[in-house]
């Protein structure tokens, strides 16, 4: 089965993506969530924000997704770190998540990380 070729997008907050972070790796598969601040039809690059963090998303491979500034989106894809150390996520799937409770999302992400760490230590 080809499932081994598809990597799971690790759940991260935009605040987790900065040069010295463990998630800041070339080709890392990530899932990010944020509000659309800017979108360029020519380059298909979107900029999403969450609090004071932002991330560029390459959306050229996405189909059936309309981009509205101010709406919330979630993307799964691979991180491309450019020579100037700026990162852009090459998205393979994306969806509009307007209505998402970001506070709950962040809290459950913290709980999940603890849960996975506990699970590893007991098996």
């Amino acid at each position, binding site marked *: *089965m080809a*499932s081994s070729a598809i990597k*799971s997008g690790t*759940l991260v907050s935009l605040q987790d993506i900065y040069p010295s972070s463990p998630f800041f790796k070339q080709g890392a598969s990530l*899932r990010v969530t944020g509000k659309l601040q800017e979108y360029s039809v020519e380059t298909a690059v979107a900029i999403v924000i969450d609090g004071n963090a932002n991330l560029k998303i390459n959306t050229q491979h996405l189909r059936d997704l309309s981009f509205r500034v101010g709406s919330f989106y*979630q993307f799964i894809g691979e991180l491309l770190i450019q020579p100037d150390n700026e990162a852009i996520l090459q998205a393979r*799937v994306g*969806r509009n998540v307007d209505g998402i409770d970001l506070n*709950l999302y962040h809290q459950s992400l913290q709980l999940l990380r603890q849960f996975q760490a506990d699970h590893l230590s007991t098996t």
Partner: protein
Amino acid sequence: MDHNHRRRRLYNTHVKLLAFDLLSLSQTPSHSSSDPISFSRKGALLSRAETVGTVTSRDLKPSKFLKFTIDDGTGCVGCVLWLNHLDSPYFARRSPPDVRLIAEAANRFASEIRLGVVARVRGRITSYRGTVQITVSDVVVERDPNAETLHCLECMNLARNCYDASGL
């Protein structure tokens, strides 16, 4: 509750598991070829699971099967939805109207599984080439943007308060 009853208390219920948990299940050795396949998690025998996540791959062989991947952020679960009811010897013994209903439902599910949608998938836990996967019995597309978060919380809650408990 005696030992055997305790081991089977989660058998045949759709346990809600996160992908990393589901993928780490160990298949219990069967004593004969007629034993149903089961998997074990902290002493409990499991046969069915429910997973919720984003569809990140899709491979359709019309009238045969749809293979797809559900990514919930903790891992990728391979799923197979059989579409070969009308010419499968397994279904040949059942009444044709029933088989047609099952086949129609399966085809409806297959059309709903598209790249990027969030789906709640239930089915039997099976194994293919050494990797745990789900043989799908039903699919619901989740449009609520908080569905995955809620499923994650449910999985953690159930693991702590129900699935992990050894002395019931």
